[in-house]
Structures are given as structure tokens and as C-alpha cells.
């Protein structure tokens, strides 16, 4: 059995540091979009990896996986327009 938890944790930390380093340039709309995309990817990793919804075919997984991308998009629209 492959234990993916350490790899997921490592990618999450890398994405966090990556978005943090973009903070100074985040007044640009496209940088803000990248930061929110990184947050959505992190959300996906937590939901499918840590919450173990990977492979589950029910509506709950779809609802959870839609949460971060939709919220990120709405926040970006509000923040930048």
C-alpha cells in the first residue's frame, strides 16, 4: 500500500510557500488569480488526499471538490473587479 500522506503534505507546504512569495506582486490581477488557483489546488489535495475522498463516487466528493474552485473564482471576481 502506498502511503501518499507525506508526499501530499510536502506538496501542500511547497504550494503554501509559493503563494506566500507572490504576496508582494499580488496587486496584479493575474498574480491574485495564481494565488487563488494555488489555494484551490491545496483544497483539492486536502479533500482527496487527507479526507480520503479519492476514489469515492458519491455526490459529496463532487460537492467538496467544487467548493475551492468556485469560491476562489468568486473571490477573485470580487477582489479584482
Amino acid at each position: 500500500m502506498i502511503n501518499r500522506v507525506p508526499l501530499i503534505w510536502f506538496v501542500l507546504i511547497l504550494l503554501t510557500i509559493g503563494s506566500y512569495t507572490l504576496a508582494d506582486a499580488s496587486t496584479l490581477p493575474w498574480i491574485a488569480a495564481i494565488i487563488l488557483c494555488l489555494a484551490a489546488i491545496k483544497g483539492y489535495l486536502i479533500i482527496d488526499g487527507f479526507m480520503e475522498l479519492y476514489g469515492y463516487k458519491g455526490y459529496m466528493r463532487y460537492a467538496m471538490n467544487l467548493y475551492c474552485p468556485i469560491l476562489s473564482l468568486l473571490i477573485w471576481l470580487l477582489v479584482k473587479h
Partner: protein
Amino acid sequence: MHSQIANNNSQVTINIELPGDLVVWFLILLEITTFALMFLAFSWVRGYDKELFLAGQQVLHPLAGLINTIALLTASGFVAQAVIDNRRNKQNQAALWLFAGMASALVYVVVKCWEYWQLGSAGYGLENNQFFMVYFLLTGFHLLHVLLGLSFLIIIARKLRRGGYGPDDALGLESGACYWHMVDLIWVMLFPIVYVIH
């Protein structure tokens, strides 16, 4: 229930049932929806007075936000590892991972309290302006969820050490773990909105 499905030369664990209790998942949906509305309200109010929000963000400690993010992600990783070890029938090791997760979560609590103390000492509070009102409400509400999640983890770890969970009896452990990951998920969205995006 989990099944191991062969994939080329390796094996991966595929979850074919929802981990934890369905009621907890509805609670999670309710909680993340509430926070989503708060995030949207924060972003909407920010649109009306960008200068005020930018000035407010300059007072915050982005490094504290980064440390808190790493602390919560690490706590989540430890909790996820505890669920896996319980499934491998290593309950004592699973309990140790949970205690490590709690220690990591305590780092978040200490740093957050330090942030509040710093801001309070500098004269910033709920009544200062819209930014600080929303900031304290949003992060304070999240801190309450962290404390609630920590309480669940303590109860679960104690039960785990007493042998209360096993590979086929992990509903409570998985439910508590999923609640904890939800707390982490909310922070993952909160961190860029409050600390990173200017």
C-alpha cells in the same frame, strides 16, 4: 470500507465508501458554506474601501500567517497518518500521530493568540474599522473551530489508546479526522484572502 486495487506494478488505496459519518459530512458542508459566505462578505466589503483594507493588511504579520498555515497543514498530515495507522492495526502509533497533530495545532493557537495580543497592544480591535472588525470575526470564528477540533482530537486519541478503535471500527476516528481536515481547508482559503492578496 477500503479496497486495494492493483495499478500497474504498485497498489493504491481506493476509498469506495464515504469515510466517517454522513452526519459529520453534512455538518462539514454547512460549516464550509458559512465560511464561504464570510469570505465573500470580506472580499465584497474590501471592494468598497481598498485603501482601508490595504492599510489594515500592512499591520498584520504575514509570517505569522505562514507559520500558522504550515502548523495546520502539518497537524492535518499527522491526523491523516493516524487514520492510516489505525487501519494497519497500529493503534498506539496512531495515537502518537494524533498527539503530534495536537502539538502542531497548539503552535497555531499560540501564534494566533500572539497576533491578537500584538494587535491589541497596538490599539487595534473590533471597533477600529471595518477591516479589523471582519478580520477579528473571521479569524476568531476559525480559532473557535480549531479549539473545537482539538477537543475532538483529544477525545479520539484517548479512546484510541484504550483500544476503542480498530481497522473495522473507525467511524468516530474518521469523522473526527475529517472535521479536523475541514478546519485546515477553511484556513487554506482564509490565508490568501487575509494575508497574501493585497
